[in-house]
């Protein structure tokens, strides 16, 4: 059935129409404002309204034809697509070239009971992403399975595909994020900084709309209540931001399930927008275990993946494999889901003489502030933050380290969060060493390696390792087999 050209669900017309109307809303409002200013003398004629309705009608017709002429088929190990009303376009997406697929359902899709399917391909930067906008859930899952190569799609099997993956008897592992852990993850997500700045911004903008007289009275009372009130206000904003950030996090990671089936990882998540991501294990280029400051305090961590090609599923260019877990479970989880990366390691720490450089590097911005402070009145701020930066420098030094075994390199470093990246030798595209003049005197150097990642590649760096490790690491990297 799937091997013949067919159309998507007719609701595609509606979905596309809504998408197009959405993108028209701003220009229409803008046009409306202009027409209401200029058209006042003509007694507010409804011409503009007709124009808008006309645009909507044209859009609708366009979308109807778009649906009619948009046809796809699964054959020859590929997704074949014919589209275009006047200019005919054909695409032929080979199964082997597909990096990852994901099913998505936004609010509109869920209300209508349909899914959209996104396909991510490797290759040049143009057209690496492809989307089927409206599919019956049954068809969407069948296409996804066909493209991921885990099932033959023919008429006989068509029915059973929709009744999900349960019949398959390849070994399966599952991880679910329960509500308690979701809440903990949200509390410790560190997204608060971002939300706080936005809430602060909105709050500061609100002041513009408050009449001056009120504001004067407000300032009088603020100064009457003095510092206490201001602190209270900031704390209040902080709490509001925290709650918002928890909701933000929860909406992304609610109902999180990770399923491993054979070679394939299937991640489902999302409260409002449901997302399903299917990923072949061999596309993973590196695994990073990250512990934010808050999470580290509670012995929690996150596992994220670097994947070649596919990545636009996540706003931060990473795929979250396990949103949050207790750190002692790491070996068990890796063994279950990423056996290629389940290794025991003891990191080789950085040499003692690196500590001074770490502290200087972390403090440098604040030292600049202090020096600048002799011109501006903010020097005290620099002095205040200096202990913090020294602390941070020390923590970075303490986190730093690496480990090698036959096929793996483990490298740990910290900016704010502590990040431990595990990579297989064969996934390292190149290795780099850097040495500054100062490092030369101290017999230190910086090591780095590059892996494929979206949009093109990613480099992981560790500063100030012992000079002798240059030989160790390069011999390990460049050896036969």
């Amino acid at each position: 059935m799937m091997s013949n050209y067919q159309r998507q669900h007719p609701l595609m017309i509606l979905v596309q129409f809504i998408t197009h109307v959405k993108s028209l809303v701003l220009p229409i409002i803008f046009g409306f404002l202009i027409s209401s200013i200029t058209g006042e003398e003509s007694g507010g004629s409804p011409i503009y309204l007709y124009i808008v309705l006309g645009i909507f009608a044209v859009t609708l017709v366009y979308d109807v034809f778009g649906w009619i002429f948009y046809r796809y088929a699964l054959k020859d190990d590929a997704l074949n697509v014919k589209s275009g009303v006047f200019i005919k376009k054909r695409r032929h997406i080979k199964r082997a070239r597909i990096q990852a697929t994901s099913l998505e359902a936004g609010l509109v899709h869920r209300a209508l009971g349909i899914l959209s399917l996104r396909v991510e391909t490797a290759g040049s930067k143009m057209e690496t992403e492809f989307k089927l906008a409206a599919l019956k859930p049954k068809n969407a899952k069948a296409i996804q399975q066909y493209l991921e190569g885990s099932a033959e799609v023919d008429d006989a099997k068509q029915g059973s595909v929709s009744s999900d993956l349960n019949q398959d008897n390849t070994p399966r592992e599952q991880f679910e994020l329960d509500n308690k852990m979701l809440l903990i993850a949200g509390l410790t997500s560190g997204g608060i900084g971002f939300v706080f700045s936005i809430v602060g911004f909105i709050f500061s903008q609100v002041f513009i709309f408050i009449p001056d007289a009120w504001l004067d009275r407000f300032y009088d009372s603020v100064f009457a209540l003095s510092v206490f009130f201001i602190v209270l206000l900031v704390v209040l904003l902080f709490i509001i931001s925290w709650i918002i950030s928890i909701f933000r996090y929860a909406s992304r990671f609610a109902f999180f399930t990770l399923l491993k089936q054979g070679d394939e990882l299937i991640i489902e998540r999302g409260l409002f927008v449901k997302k399903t991501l299917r990923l072949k294990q061999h596309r993973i280029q590196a695994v990073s275990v990250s512990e934010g400051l808050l999470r580290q305090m509670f012995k929690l961590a996150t596992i994220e993946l670097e994947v070649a090609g596919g990545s636009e599923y996540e706003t931060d260019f990473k795929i979250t494999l396990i949103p949050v877990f207790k750190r002692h479970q790491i070996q068990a989880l890796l063994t279950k889901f990423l056996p290629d990366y389940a290794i025991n390691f003891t990191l080789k720490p950085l040499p003692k003489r690196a500590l001074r450089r770490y502290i200087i590097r972390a403090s440098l911005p604040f030292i600049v502030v202090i020096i600048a402070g002799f011109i501006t009145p903010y020097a005290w701020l620099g002095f205040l933050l200096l202990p913090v930066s020294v602390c941070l420098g020390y923590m970075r030094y303490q986190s730093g380290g690496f480990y090698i075994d036959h096929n793996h390199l483990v490298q740990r470093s910290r900016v704010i969060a502590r990040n431990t990246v595990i990579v297989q030798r064969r996934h390292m595209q190149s290795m780099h060493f850097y040495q500054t003049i100062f490092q030369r005197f101290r017999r230190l150097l910086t090591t780095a390696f590059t892996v494929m990642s979206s949009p093109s590649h990613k480099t992981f760096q560790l500063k100030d390792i012992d000079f002798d490790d240059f030989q160790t690491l390069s011999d390990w990297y460049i050896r036969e087999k």
Partner: protein
Amino acid sequence: MTLTPPSNRIEKKAGTVWRIQGLIYVIFYVVLVVGYVLLRHFLWEGLPFFIIIVSSVFFGLIGLLQMLVIPSIRLIYWGYDINEQDIDIQHGIIIIKRTLIPMNRIQHVDTEHGPIMRLFGLSTLNIATAGTAHKIPALKMDTARALRKRISNLASLSDDDV
């Protein structure tokens, strides 16, 4: 302890090429400044003087450095090595950078030469992996061509190793 560069060196003539490039850079700024001063003198007296002069002097000085000092330092640290397993490149001025690229990671090699390079019979070797790009500048043209052939042979030989 300093990273010692791999045994193969790029051509000494590279220094001359870089010096010429620096000279072009300096000439560009001199022309710019002279043109600006003339424009200000004859046509438009309201043009600001101080900022343009300071910035031109700054960039001009950088150009002078590029012409006189930097090429010889660069030559000291430039080195490369190509064998069956990997390509080993080192370069840098203040920060020395060492890059190791295994043969089986190499996706693409080519050679190119700009007009100045060609004048001196030199050529640049470009090496690309999936994601990163590297170059060895200023090789003799036939050396560059031979290396390109050798690398593409070695890279395809070790293909099955991936």
